[in-house]
């Protein structure tokens, strides 16, 4: 689902943000660098015509060159267009990072705490700090959700998910 149509009063007032043009240029540049690396790697394993037909790098090498050229075209057209559109306002970016940073911390913690404990903490913290709910309600929501998850995945479907110290205490 997307929320393109929602009116954001604050966003309109905030006004300033990161320009779309600069993001376009950066993305196109990254595309070109990535494709150069991929083309180099494919050329290394052989992108030509071997004894048994096309070599392993034949197809991807040509693709990488093609995508690189597209990147160049995007770069040039973004450079020439003097577009003053915004990619996102600072407020919007701040909100995105308020979700993105906890998400990355959450993903990192899965390796150590297991997915159930990490998810419970993630939900609880997000509710507490972003939603302003009481500690009790936040914790209860996180824990109950994950008990249900545990029941569905481990006990009903017997699909094992990453587990950590807490589950080990109970012998899982």
């Amino acid at each position: 689902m997307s929320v393109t149509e929602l009116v954001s009063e604050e966003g309109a007032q905030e006004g300033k943000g990161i320009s779309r043009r600069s993001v376009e240029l950066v993305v196109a540049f990254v595309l070109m660098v990535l494709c150069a690396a991929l083309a180099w790697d494919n050329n290394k394993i052989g992108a030509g015509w071997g004894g048994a037909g096309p070599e392993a790098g034949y197809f991807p090498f040509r693709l990488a060159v093609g995508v690189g050229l597209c990147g160049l075209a995007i770069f040039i057209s973004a450079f020439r267009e003097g577009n003053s559109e915004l990619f996102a306002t600072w407020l919007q970016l701040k909100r995105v990072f308020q979700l993105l940073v906890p998400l990355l911390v959450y993903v990192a913690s899965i390796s150590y705490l297991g997915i159930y404990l990490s998810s419970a903490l993630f939900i609880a913290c997000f509710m507490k700090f972003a939603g302003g709910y009481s500690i009790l309600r936040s914790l209860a929501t996180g824990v109950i959700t994950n008990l249900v998850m545990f029941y569905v995945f481990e006990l009903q479907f017997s699909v094992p998910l990453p587990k950590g110290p807490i589950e080990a205490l109970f012998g899982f």
Partner: protein
Amino acid sequence: MEELSLLANGFGVILTWQNIGLMMIGILLGIIVGVLPGLGGPNGVAILLPLTFGMSPTSAIILLSCIYWGALFGGAITSVLFNIPGEAWSVATTFDGYPMAQNGQAGAALTNAFSGSFIGAITGVLLITFLAPRVAAFALEFGPPEFFAVFFLTFCSFIGLGKEPKAKIMAAMGLGLLLAAVGMDTVSGDLRMTFGSRELMRGFDFLVVVIGLFGISEILITIEEGLAFKGKSAKIDLKVVLKTWAQLPRYFVTMIRSCVVGCWMGITPGGAVAASFMGYGLAKRFSKEPDSFGKGNPEGVLAPETAAHAAGTAALLPMLALGIPGSATAAVLLGGLMIWGLQPGPLLFTEQKDFVWGLIASMYLGNIAGLIIVLSTVPLFAAILKVPFSIIAPMILMVCAVGAYTVLGSVHDIWIMALFGIVGYIFKKLTYPLAPLVLALVLGDRLEDAFRQSMLTSKGSLDIFWSNGLCGSITTIAILLLISPAFGWIRDRIKASKSAESKFA
């Protein structure tokens, strides 16, 4: 009418309590998936796909295709009540659906939307029933060059018909094909583009990529506007439904028009979005009172929904008959076929009769069940949207993480998912299309195999793609589609210069 007896067999296959139960569960899950932000058709199916590995392919596809129908229905709920299009092809539904809801006619708007969806979908299924077996039988003669030509046609039509800048469509497609090539090369055993990483040896799993690109990115876009949703409430009772249905015959021609446009655009990949706008545009152009569109005209809800669902359903035709998906969700379903050990393509119709006709029969039943369920449970799902986003968002992210992990049981995949979430967020904002990327990722290996085998036969000459009439005409049509935007551009130029001349003359 051999199809009818095969179809009857199909109904025999699916009419077990277990399958009917799965159908209901699928539709309910699908509506939830369609209503919630961050969970659309493609990644809803992707997340649940791993749970079906243990089921029989027929039960699994019934469950997953019903999620697809449910998600299609669910998209209309958010469009009408919240002015938030659930999928890109629901955008046109908001034009008249939301004004109707504001006028207090939410129930009528939803009934129109659902009925239109149903009629469109059933038309699409009828088309599949009678056309798909013929297309498949025809395609049995295909060799590698023909298959490459059809793949090529698919990709070219994305480029030719896509509304995004052409360079971006091609870049997204190329990236998808490159991602598919990462890892061990199946022919030579060489490691490609792994840069010494052991994790990359097995390549990128398309399910993980889909969950990131569609799910995580959508949450990031949603959160930009803050944590609040503002929606209209809806109540549907039998009286409203019957009253709306009584008026449907009035829009008979509109519906036919939308069905034709939808079926045509659905078989052509990437057409569902275009179909919904075309359906809306045609209804408006032929209407006696075009000014009432955009202010809450029921015809403006009916037309795009019918077209979009005819297209969404018809998109399954090339997937079944040729092994080439017409939409992102169809691509995920196709990936599922391969995981369940079925080889997608024309052989499916001869070797897996029970599976194919079971699926087609479930399309009929699924849409009927879907219509009844969605009409009777709208208030429930509208209530789900009232749950604050600060609770829903972390839960959806958790479900996505679990979905990414269960594909192969690797924590590394959760990182890949997060990475593609960020990529998807940036791509969406810069209008790089995501559907061609996913399609390319799913088809990449088979496209490359077809290309290599053709090249082997021809010893490296591209002439092989014009070696016979069939192959040559497909390739030529593909190239014409590819360069078709240039014609429009030239025409505009000529027009512009002519009008400039007449001004000065």
